[in-house]
């Protein structure tokens, strides 16, 4: 999570409650833009005396800018801050445009200025909430996951918050936006004198709503609850059916084969082993996890080698990576190494270890067979040169073979990761 430490150019805009006169808005703003607080304060006072704009801006900032020290914000709040800042910015922009118009004597009276400012702020909050990074917010989001985004998913980060806390923050911001827009409506109605008429209508609608609510609430509640239960039950029975189908296709099938081949212990062992591997991966649900990644590809290769050569191949993978052409070459070379270990390892189990680091992929394939003198590669193992060493070399990787009489054999494969 290095992204957490990524710094912004300017300190985050926060109210500086340590150096405050009223609420720390001026000193916070001063620190944000990097000037002396006194300048900002003078500007605010000047703006306040010029028709009260300064007061309005100050109050808005008091509401929207959180207090506290600038650094080390929790990651999940970043999007929230961006949203609120943008809403605030839009409100101020609208305010300045309208005030300019008014100063020029054009179109607008006070009846319309304040409602429009509120609507602008509320709308900004809601639009940004709904359409995520539409305004360049998420592009600047420093903690966006480095994982490759699916090309079909349009907005990676903000649309689907992952933690309950994220979701709560999102909802509360949306609520704030709605409240602002409603408040704008009220301000407009009351300023234009239409509020009292509207109040009568609203009141009667409200009374009807409450009456209906009291009457139908229990029915609706029961309906919702029974629907939820029914849905849960359906999911359960679907899962049962899926499991039954899977057991039928795999485990029962294998048991039938085991009975047929009961006189061939080697075949029975291989069948049991293959079924075990298959059932394990089904239980941990690695099979349907999208494209083949390194760990899974090695598992598949190991299970094929096990099936063909009747030797146990155990795979341990630390970290994982998507497979590009180099990764595929690495898996192919590792598979070849497994075949060799199975053939020449005198039936000893084969250990495969894969490690993914930032700049390279490494795979070790080891058997505990008789080993050989590495300096004098036996004639029957010449294939190793082409299929392992040569293949790795062509893709920019390396292969090293460590062996000694009686010490088993280990093939070490290293492939640099492509710069993406």
């Amino acid at each position, binding site marked *: 999570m290095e992204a957490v430490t990524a710094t912004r150019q300017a300190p985050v805009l926060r109210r500086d409650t340590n150096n405050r006169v009223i609420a720390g808005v001026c000193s916070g703003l001063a620190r944000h833009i990097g000037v002396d607080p006194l300048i900002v304060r003078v500007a605010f006072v000047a703006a306040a005396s010029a028709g009260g704009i300064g007061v309005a801006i100050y109050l808005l900032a008091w509401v929207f800018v959180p207090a506290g020290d600038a650094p080390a914000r929790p990651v999940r709040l970043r999007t929230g801050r961006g949203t609120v800042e943008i809403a605030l910015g839009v409100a101020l922009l609208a305010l300045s445009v309208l005030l300019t118009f008014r100063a020029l004597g054009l179109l607008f009276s006070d009846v319309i200025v304040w409602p429009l400012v509120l609507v602008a702020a509320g709308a900004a909050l809601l639009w940004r909430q709904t359409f995520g990074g539409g305004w360049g917010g998420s592009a600047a989001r420093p903690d966006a996951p480095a994982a490759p985004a699916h090309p079909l998913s349009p907005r990676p980060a903000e649309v689907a918050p992952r933690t309950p806390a994220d979701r709560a923050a999102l909802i509360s911001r949306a609520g704030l936006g709605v409240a602002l827009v409603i408040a704008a409506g009220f301000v407009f109605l009351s300023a234009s004198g239409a509020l009292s008429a509207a109040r009568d209508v609203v009141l009667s609608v409200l009374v009807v709503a409450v009456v209906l609510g009291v009457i139908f609430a229990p029915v609706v509640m029961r309906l919702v609850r029974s629907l939820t239960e029914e849905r849960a039950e359906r999911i359960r029975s679907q899962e049962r059916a899926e499991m039954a189908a899977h057991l039928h296709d795999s485990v029962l099938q294998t048991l039938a084969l085991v009975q047929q081949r009961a006189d061939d212990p080697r075949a029975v062992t291989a069948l049991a082993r293959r079924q075990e591997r298959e059932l*394990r991966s089904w239980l941990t649900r690695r099979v349907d996890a999208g494209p083949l990644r390194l760990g899974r590809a090695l598992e598949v290769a190991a299970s094929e080698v096990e099936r063909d050569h009747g030797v146990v191949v155990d795979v*341990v993978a*630390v*970290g994982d990576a998507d497979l590009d052409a180099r990764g595929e070459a690495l898996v192919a070379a590792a598979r070849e190494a497994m075949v060799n270990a199975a053939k020449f390892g005198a039936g000893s189990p084969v*250990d495969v*270890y894969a490690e993914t680091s930032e700049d390279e992929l490494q795979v070790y394939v*080891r058997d*505990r067979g008789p080993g050989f003198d590495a300096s004098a590669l036996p004639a029957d193992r010449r294939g190793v040169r082409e299929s392992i060493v040569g293949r790795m070399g062509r893709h920019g990787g390396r292969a090293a073979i460590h062996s000694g009489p009686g010490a088993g054999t280990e093939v070490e494969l290293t492939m640099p990761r492509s710069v993406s």
Partner: protein
Amino acid sequence: MRPGPSAPRVLIVDDHQLFRAGVRSELEGLVDIAGDAATVDDAVREIESIRPDVVLLDVHMPEGGGVEVIRRAAAEGDPPRFLALSVSDAAEDVIAVIRAGARGYVTKSISGPELADAVRRVNEGDAVFSPKLAGFVLDAFAGGPPAPAATADHDAELDQLTPREREVLRHLARGYMYKEIALRLGISAKTVEAHVSAVLRKLQLSNRHELSRWAVERRLVE
């Protein structure tokens, strides 16, 4: 062949009768099998009455499984050493039982002599890591140190492996024995054991996110 007088006394805990019998015959003559138990309650009672040195513990049993046995034995005071033995090699199973207090984890496909060797090592106070477990630990401790722990008294050192410990674990994951690792790294087998024991301690005490997550997932399932 009778086990020597210094052979560890072993209790086998597993809810499958067939498997208990299998382990018994595999270990016959290699260790002193003091008894067996099929349920969590039986296991706790047997531990209390026969006081074995090492308990071979199945992870998956009704009523809480191996983790529950370790927890209740520890509550009684002076618990024996536990070696977990399971068909499962899912991270949450392995990590949960290690964090509960087991000194090692091996899968049921292990051969008789290897199992006897693992029992002896656990009895001597060493830790026993299967290649799979070593891989999980490397995965869990991958990357930089986690965010500072919430508790002030937490030892930050617990949340990271030293380069040497990492090297030892990588060799374990590659399938090397302690003696072979010692030879390759140019250190004594005792030092290798010390590194593995240190890793075990970190595994049990660290509050790295991955470890607690795995441990918690297991509890939710049961």
